[in-house]
């Protein structure tokens, strides 16, 4: 998986732009207005550092349905197939049992409307992060192949204001969020980071958790709390690069062979990890150790 991620990252970095559309809705109270706008601003600042980033942030009065409809129509004319396209909703959502709506000045927009706008975007890799209350109710309308959906809540019945957005934004600033240390923050890593931090918040405060984040990235089936190979979720999210944390290395043609060797070893490691459950643990660790040493040596050669 990792080798594939690197290849895709390389492709994304080389050829595609990274589109970030952040929409901050109505807070209803001054405290929430400030909080939502603050998170949107922080996210805006964080992603502006991404190479080839196209950052569009809509807060307060700017975030009307008509403005957004026109903006998405404009994006549809500009976003290319090889680009990544990320939409982040920050604010309050509602669900009346039939339809999810995102609360903005003037008429709200529905999940179906947002899906319609995004369907016109050519990018092969799309990510919609709905951090609002009741966001779980938007998943069914939004899901489709090649689109990863992250929701702060698992259903429309989780109606309390959420915290997930705070930690999702924090993931862009904390190097610890890049758990595989490949210097790229993936959508899956950001999801896991925000989810874990949210869970811990409720645990530490000894409060009943009122939000349970989920992820869906296959275009079918239910969103899940813990994306993993056994439930088939998380692969596309792991391949979705949100932000590069380091400088892409350029290799001379003579080192290209080493790059290929490295990718081959990484592929073997990924394969081995998938076989782990069926293997004797000692044997697994032995093979893993050998591959990791080989990989480390190859990397050492590459770095010379």
């Amino acid at each position, binding site marked *: 998986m*990792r080798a594939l991620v690197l290849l895709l990252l390389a492709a994304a970095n080389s050829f595609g732009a990274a589109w970030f559309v952040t929409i901050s809705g109505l807070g209803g109270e001054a405290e929430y207005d400030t909080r939502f706008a603050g998170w949107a601003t922080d996210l805006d600042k964080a992603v502006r550092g991404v190479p080839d980033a196209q950052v569009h942030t809509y807060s307060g009065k700017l975030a009307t349905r008509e403005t957004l409809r026109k903006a998405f129509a404009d994006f549809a004319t500009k976003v290319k197939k090889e680009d990544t396209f990320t939409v982040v909703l920050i604010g309050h959502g509602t669900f009346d049992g039939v339809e999810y709506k995102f609360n903005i000045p003037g008429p709200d927009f529905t999940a179906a409307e947002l899906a319609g706008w995004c369907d016109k975007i050519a990018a092969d890799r799309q990510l919609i992060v709905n951090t609002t209350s009741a966001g779980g109710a938007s998943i069914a309308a939004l899901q489709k192949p090649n689109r990863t959906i992250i929701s702060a809540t698992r259903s429309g019945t989780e109606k309390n204001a959420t915290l997930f957005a705070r930690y999702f934004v924090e993931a862009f600033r*904390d190097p*610890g*969020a890049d*758990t*595989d*240390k*490949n210097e790229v923050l993936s959508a899956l890593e950001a999801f896991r*980071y925000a989810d*874990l*931090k949210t869970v*811990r918040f409720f*645990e*530490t405060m*000894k409060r009943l958790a009122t939000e349970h984040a989920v992820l869906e990235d296959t275009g079918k089936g239910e969103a899940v709390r813990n994306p993993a190979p056994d439930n088939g979720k998380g692969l596309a999210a792991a391949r979705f690069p949100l932000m590069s944390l380091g400088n892409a290395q350029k290799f001379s043609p003579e080192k290209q062979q080493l790059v290929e060797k490295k990718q081959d070893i*990484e592929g073997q*490691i990924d394969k081995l*990890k998938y076989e782990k459950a069926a293997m004797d643990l000692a044997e697994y*660790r032995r093979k*893993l*150790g050998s591959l*990791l*040493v080989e*990989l*480390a*040596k190859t*990397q*050492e050669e590459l*770095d010379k």
Partner: protein
Amino acid sequence: MKLLTLLVLASAMNWAATVAECDGHRKHGRKQPAFDCYLALTSSKDMAVVAEGFWGLKQFKAANDAFRKAQDANPKSADVRVRWGMMFLERFQKKDAADLFTEALELKKDDARALLGLAIVASESYEEKAVETAREALKQDPKLVEAQELLARMALEDGNETLAKEEADKAIAMSAEALNALAVRATIEWLNDRPGTEWSDKILKINPVYGQAWALAAHFFVINRRYEEGILLYRKAIAMEPELWDAKAELGVNLMRLGRDKDAREFLEDAYSHEYKSASVVNTLTLMDSYKNFVRYQTPVTDVRLHKKEAELLKPFFETELLRAIATYEKKYKMKLPNAVRLEVYPDHDDFAVRTMGLPGLGALGVTFGTVVAMDSPSGRKPGTFHWASTLWHELNHVFVLTATEHRVPRWFAEGMAMHEETAGNPEWGDRLDPGAIDAIKKKKLLPIATLDRGFVRPSYPNQVTVSFFQAGKICDYIKERWGFEKLLEMMRGFAARKTTVVVVEEALKMKPEDFDKDFMVWLDKQVGKTVAGYDEWRKNLKIIADNFKEKQYDEVIKKSKAIRDLYPDYVEAGNIYEFLADSYTEKGDKAAAAKELLAYAKIGGRNPATLKRLGKLLEEQGNPKEAAAAYERINYVYPVQDEELHTRLGLLWLELKEPSKAVLEFSAAVASKPMDPTVAYFNLAKAFRAAGRKDEARDNLLSALESAPGFKPAQKMLLELTDK
């Protein structure tokens, strides 16, 4: 037997029975006549009598319906309410019972039986008012033998055998067949290892199957922490009266307390399946069902059980501390324990509370049954409110003292020794002098040593149990200081030899208890007199300081805080002087002075993790990694959970200080905290293992780091270094 069948049978009986006759049969152990008699009552036209019949037959629902109808028929009857309430009491519904007794008293002022009912309700919670209410009942009806029996029982619960005998004898004088008074007399003999046959024979002569007498005795053995003997008595009670469900339930609960889970479950399920669904039965069964969620770690002398969600994280801390405490106590008390100590740590306080249900005066944080210790997990408490290591040492001390004395030790001495040991090993541990104790000293509410146990069992003011813990601990501190630790051991041996507090004080300390009390108060005054005298001034000024701080008058805060800080140095709770000073110094840019105040806070026993972390950071900034590490390490004994940052920071400091073994402990804790960044956590652990010369474990953890992040270069580099070598 089904209700309908009973009714048919009852209607067939053509003789008229009275409730008193039926109760008489039962009291004398004539089971079949009692059954027939109660059955006959159910055909009465008087619903109150019908209710008594069904109650006697243990048909509680039918009895309840009949009582309701009786009340509807006679809404002004206090008697119906009292009897109905008594049935509720038997069915463990104290609140409903108390409501009915109160209603009865509204209908009939000073109704003796209603007062008795309220006294029983209060006695079940060991409330002080139980005694006065029982006395009031007797005043209203001097022939109410049950009230007199209750007084005897409560006196014995208070540990006052002389009074218990007097009260029991009064009851026996009122009625030679006062079975429960006879049981109290027999119990006093049994508690003192005498056969007591003069009393048990009398009981058996009146009722050859009166198992309740032995169940009552069992209750006293249990509240005196003599669980094994209590269990034997419950078994005997059940053998005599197999349908004594409350005894079966108590037997199950006490077997559970001693860790005999299989037997415990058998008795509890038996009680439950026979509709004896008291809170203790239900909660204990629920607790036992949750045992599957616990992970067990054993050594030859320990058996630690931790909840699986935090087992890996807490195991090194709890096991290490438990082993250290056992080794320390073995040396100090010159003894070995008969078996491994079982330590159960509950992240959910309600689970822990099940273990202490129905026992008076036990700690709210930990409890000991024989060699079984149960306690709260730090994760079950608000950070900073619970020093788990202190509690562990406290409870383990009970294991030693109870074992050494075969559980023949007064409560004050057991708690006093445990309190003493909390601070003996580390003066920062243990409880601080709190405002409740200050108030008690000021108002001269401390009890004489001879009756100090009463403060634990039946408190006469709200925080008397806490004050009694404090006083008992200080008494042991005083004895150690004046006569040496050996004297405490001598007293312990005195208690083991079945001597009373009065005798032990006289023999070991060569003085009358009254003289001891006087000397102790003089000593205590030297210890805390300044605080007690200055408390009001301190409190008044603290408020002014808080206001000054709000108004950012930092010079004023510093000036006033310094003036009163030493009036009450033990105060380290929210809004303490140390933090006001530290905050003010910080505002003025004097970080060194701020650190000095926070260090004083830590050394006097301050344990708020956030404050200790702040101290650690200040000390790190000042280039004092050793003191910084010490500041962070204090948090491990208070709240080592949900804080990977603490363990990582401390681990790095230990590495810097060339203490790799300690670094291993901390980074292991960081890994077990399910960190946000497991790669770095494993890598740090690998570094610590490498520094400790444990290369295989270092390599193993590097593999774990690289498993999730194969390209993590620092780990790759170390892997190659370890592999090459």
